[in-house]
């Protein structure tokens, strides 16, 4: 078998080979972009990224759960007592001002996903309890007892009317 003669390598061949290798590699990386991107949410889902909620039929002390981007959103119409109690404390494990967590004190809007392992907590008395691993949250969605590491997340939302919020747009 004839042998490949690689003894008298010229610099030019080395250079050409390097350039070609780099160009090929760059192309291969670029080619992976469409494949990776195709696994991201489609334009249709992005269009549904905003949820409009009418608050007028939620009674004082009542809670509604709506879906936003496939996740439950707790909307709690808080009583004056509850507001007072929440404003009086800073929560437990992760201290945070109640006023930082609401846009209007009577409305608490949080993502109803336990920050521990992603279960949906149940409304029990004041606050929520997660039945998966026993985490507890108060009426401001702040974690009082672990194992959950964080307070319930507040989604981006804004009031588009007195009684209407748009979740998804801050």
């Amino acid at each position, binding site marked *: 078998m004839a042998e*490949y003669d690689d003894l008298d390598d010229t610099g030019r061949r080395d250079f050409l080979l390097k350039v*070609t290798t780099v160009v090929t590699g760059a192309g291969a990386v670029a080619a992976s972009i469409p494949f990776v991107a195709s696994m991201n949410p489609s334009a249709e889902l992005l269009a549904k990224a905003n949820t409009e909620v009418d608050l007028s039929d939620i009674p004082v002390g009542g809670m509604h759960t709506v879906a936003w981007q496939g996740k439950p959103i707790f909307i709690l119409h808080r009583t004056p007592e509850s507001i007072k109690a929440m404003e009086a404390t800073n929560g437990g494990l992760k201290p945070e001002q109640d006023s930082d967590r609401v846009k209007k004190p009577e409305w608490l809007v949080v993502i109803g996903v336990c920050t521990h392992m992603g279960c949906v907590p149940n409304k029990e008395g004041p606050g929520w309890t997660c039945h998966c691993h026993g985490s507890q949250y108060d009426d401001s969605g702040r974690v009082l007892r672990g194992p959950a590491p964080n307070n319930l997340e507040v989604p981006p939302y804004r009031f588009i009317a007195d009684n209407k919020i748009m979740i998804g747009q801050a």
Partner: protein
Amino acid sequence: MSPTFAAENKLEKFQTDTSVIAVERGVDTFMNACHGCHSLKYVHYRDLARFGIDKERIATWRGDSTLDSAMTSLLSDEAALQSFGKVPPDLSMIVMAREGGASYVFAYLTGYYLTPEGMTSNHLFPLTKMPDALEISTATDSVKRSEIMEQAHDIVSFLSWAADPQKAERESLGYYVIGYLIILTVLLYNVKLQVWSKLKT
């Protein structure tokens, strides 16, 4: 493509104008002349916005529908069956779904004429159940006719865009990909020459 429609060979080659202005005019005419019966269920109002048409303009077309809803017609299938004996086809893909493509749709839209008996017929598709929406069969003066031709042209431009909305994006990406491949192939060819020149005979 296929030789089914002999007529299609004689169709004038349709020059699609998929500029935003032409498509916008096309949507406008479409909403007035076609959308009463025909849906575009795969096209959403937001697609028009993404294409570059002004949102305020879109709002005048969509009425109570949201920006995210499909451009479906208000005519129900039952009502359509009663009035026409046939459900008007969805037009999202119509330009892609006909031999001859845009040229066919244009020739069809402008192919209405009055028979000597005073009936409306169509050169391309005599059995059609669709009325002459653009009223070209009764238009006699040349100004009016050329206006209607313009309208038909805009509608078909819009429908061409609707059937293949990524065409512009696809082709611009295509130039980069082909350009890259030319460079890569030239490089590979030179490496190949050099490698093979080392071969002892």
